[in-house]
């Protein structure tokens, strides 16, 4: 149901106010206002105006602006006030149903593993074990627990199968002939953008606009673009303006400024209470052992420990993920995610709501897919609580959409469809050829997108790509890049005759330069 803009605006305002009320920012603003009463420039006759001016000049108004901006970025626009909460999670009923079935399946897998191994989902750690864990908190990577019996709850391949089987029961084949011709793996009629629309959305990536990742290369004198861009970046940081930062990073972040720019966009300031919260999570980890911890260990060992770049940060990954699994504030994101956290019941009280808890505390079971999304952040942040907050915010803003079934334009289903559509429309020969030889392109590119390319690109290139995710507040660029990679290697791909050979051509992305690829695909390819 469409909402008139004014009604939508007031609903949005009401929601933002409700969310910020009672936050630490709110109490800090109140305190600042009270403190300002002692200042000579605050006069009783013009109290309200004077305080407002004071908050502006002291930078507090900017902090409030950033917080509001952050809320607007994260939460979707409100729908009709009569719409039930599940519509905010996911408006399409069949998608909700599919996500529900998928979750049931995962939970079943987890529970059976539990029963098989006779391990409780959670138990309190004995005191000596607690001490031991505290001592080796910074080097959990050297631990070698026996993980042979644990298996990841699901593999990316399983998830892809589920997405391939999605069908809209209300959809009749005859209605949209263009979609009937869709020959990819995804068979649901979601609306995705075409290249003209993408060109508009990603206009800052155009050929006439300077980019980091292109115009800072060795052959280009820095006076052309790089120096000025760095100067602007420093200014944006000095002003502490989230919105400006988000606009700025569309052209890429200078390496020295990236950590601060991302923190500004994500509105992370690492206040004392944030550090305290992290320490609290850490002590939760020490005190209680969760089954999911073993799954985390296993997943880290399988993914990051063997990576050329990320192996160094193995220990940080354990710290971040173990804390993450205990973080109940993550439950908040389920209001706008199509996923629902699994519930567990105290032993013997199955089905009794008063004995239900979310398991694990943050509602997330499978870590395999997003461990690699923590690792690149270790290149930017080496203070644990800041690293943690940045990761958490990145997850609840972006990466969660890669692991749940939804109709959101940045959801994995839309990304897959966008990728396939781009490929089929603009490289039809390649698409048909690969399909003919049993190498549906999505089978290869799925793992790239579901991991936001982490573990496939060189780190500096990955960071340039994620600059744009933050800048455009969307994951669509992942699908565009995936298509651009296929376009880049089209000549070799046309010559392969099997899925394995196609995989081989696309096995090594570590030498790719993402920005030229994106630019050429969007702006320099004749359509």
């Amino acid at each position, binding site marked *: 149901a469409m909402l008139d803009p004014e009604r939508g605006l007031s609903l949005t305002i009401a929601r933002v106010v409700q969310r910020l009320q009672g936050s630490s920012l709110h109490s800090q603003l109140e305190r600042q206002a009270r403190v300002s009463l002692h200042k000579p420039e605050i006069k009783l006759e013009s109290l309200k105006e004077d305080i407002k001016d004071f908050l502006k000049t002291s930078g507090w108004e900017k902090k409030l602006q950033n917080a509001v901006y952050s809320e607007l970025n994260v939460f979707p626009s409100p729908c009709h006030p009569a719409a039930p909460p599940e519509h905010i999670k996911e408006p399409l009923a069949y998608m909700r149903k599919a996500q529900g079935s998928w979750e049931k399946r995962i939970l079943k897998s987890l529970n059976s593993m539990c029963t098989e191994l006779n391990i409780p989902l959670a138990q309190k750690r004995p005191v000596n074990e607690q001490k031991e864990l505290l001592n080796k908190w*910074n080097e959990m990577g050297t631990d070698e627990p026996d993980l042979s019996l644990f298996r990841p709850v699901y593999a990316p391949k399983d998830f892809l199968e589920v997405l391939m089987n999605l069908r809209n029961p209300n959809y009749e084949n005859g209605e949209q002939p263009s979609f009937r011709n869709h020959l990819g793996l995804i068979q649901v009629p979601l609306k995705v953008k075409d290249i003209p629309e993408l060109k508009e959305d990603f206009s800052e990536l155009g050929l006439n606009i300077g980019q980091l990742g292109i115009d800072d290369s060795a052959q280009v004198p820095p006076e052309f673009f790089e120096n000025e861009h760095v100067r602007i970046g420093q200014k944006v940081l000095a002003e502490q303006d989230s919105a400006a930062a988000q606009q700025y990073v569309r052209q890429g972040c200078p*390496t020295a400024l990236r950590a601060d720019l991302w923190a500004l966009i994500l509105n992370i300031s690492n206040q004392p209470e944030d550090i305290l919260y992290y320490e609290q999570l850490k002590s939760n980890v020490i005190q209680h052992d969760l089954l999911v911890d073993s799954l985390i260990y296993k997943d880290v060992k399988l993914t990051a420990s063997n990576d050329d770049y990320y192996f160094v940060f193995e220990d940080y990954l354990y710290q971040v993920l173990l804390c993450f699994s205990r973080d109940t504030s993550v439950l908040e994101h389920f209001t706008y995610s199509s996923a629902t956290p699994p519930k567990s019941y105290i032993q013997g009280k199955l089905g009794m709501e008063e004995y239900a808890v979310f398991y694990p505390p943050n509602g997330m079971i499978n870590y395999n897919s997003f461990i690699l999304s923590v690792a690149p952040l270790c*290149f*930017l942040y080496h203070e644990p609580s800041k690293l943690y907050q940045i990761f958490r915010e990145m997850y609840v803003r972006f990466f969660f959409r890669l692991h749940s079934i939804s109709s959101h334009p940045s959801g994995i289903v839309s990304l897959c469809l966008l990728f396939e559509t781009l490929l089929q429309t603009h490289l039809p020969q390649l698409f048909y050829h690969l399909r003919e030889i049993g190498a549906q392109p999505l089978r290869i590119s799925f793992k790239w997108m579901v991991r936001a390319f982490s573990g496939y690109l060189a780190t*500096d290139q990955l*960071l340039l790509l994620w600059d744009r995710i933050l800048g455009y507040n969307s994951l669509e660029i992942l699908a565009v890049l995936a298509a651009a990679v296929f376009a880049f290697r089209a000549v070799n791909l046309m010559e392969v005759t099997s899925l394995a050979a196609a995989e081989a051509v696309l096995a090594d992305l570590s030498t790719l330069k993402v920005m030229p690829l994106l630019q050429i695909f969007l702006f320099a390819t004749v359509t």
Partner: protein
Amino acid sequence: FRIMAGKVKWVTDIEKSVLINNFEKRGWIQVAENEDWNFYWMSVQTIRNVFSVETGYRLSDDQIVNHFPNHYELTRKDLMVKNIKRYRKELEKEGSPLAEKDENGKYIYLDFVPVTFMLPADYNLFVEEFRKNPSSTWIMKPCGKAQGKGIFLINKLSQIKKWSRDSKTSSFVSQSSKEAYVISLYINNPLLIGGKKFDLRLYVLVSTYRPLRCYMYKLGFCRFCTVKYTPSTSELDNMFVHLTNVAIQKHGDDYNHIHGGKWTVSNLRLYLESTRGKEVTNKLFDEIHWIIVQSLKAVAPVMNNDKHCFECYGYDIIIDDKLKPWLIEVNASPSLTSSTANDRILKYNLINDTLNIAVPNGEIPDCKWNKSPPKEVLGNYEVLYDEEMAQSDGPDRDLRSRPGQSTGVKGSRARDSGKPVLTTWK
């Protein structure tokens, strides 16, 4: 019967595929040592024989070898330190600004080797220094060994009682070089990444010492310790924590064969720029280039600058947590064994680029050539210092070469600035 004239004839006593594949791909012909050869990639034992008084022989104009006769002036730990100390004193004597000292008497620009003494000869001097800092840790290294063999740490004088005894014996006792040790102050505040200690391995090619012409390989790497670094004294005996030589690390329980605990230098650069900022990172890399060039200048006067020779050194450098680089040692025969697939590729390319510079056009060499290769053949090397070019220019020439992004991140910026007065370097 093919006419072989015109093809380079090669010999080696190091059976490594990265070498042999490179020779074969150039169409060179393998011959035996006693035959006529043009190119001999030899081990350090062999070079000793070639240039020794008893067994040595003259090399002809069309013969090239991969070591300088007395490379040990740089590559033996005790001689390297001796030459650097001598160099500094000479600069001080001539009043050079390079030899400037700070208020604590430390060289501002030339303090890049950790305090080192020879044992047993300098035992008493060492004790004096040790007592100034009794809680310090020192690392004992045998002068003549490589790959981390025979190295151990001490933090108590009693642990090196043996050398105290030896120093008191008659001064006519000749110490065979096998028993001589150097003892250096251990860098106990290394820069840690992910909580792990690492060192830098950089490759430097020297084609001539007088005039000094040297190249740095852009694709150096960091070698990480597999076990978490802790400065605690109980860990002193755990060599896996402290030593970063791959040969030792390979046997640690945690050693991972897929990545071999290495990072490229560009990764390091990305990490440092992102977490510490661009200026301090640039400063660090400038300093690293600086200390390499200074170490070469220090030994240049005593090096036998035989025109048949070139040499590819493996420099080991440790960065401390104040981002100061320290020269630990220089290897004459950097390992050509590969621990991973990436490693194999790197070493293959290293040899390839080295041969392109040392043996121009892959043709039979003439050792009298000017040793000035054109820029196109440098490959992944960049000019680190060219004394001839530096002296021919008047003003400081700041050649900021920003190398290609083969790994996507700008590599080290080698400066080719001439004058020792360091407006560009410091």
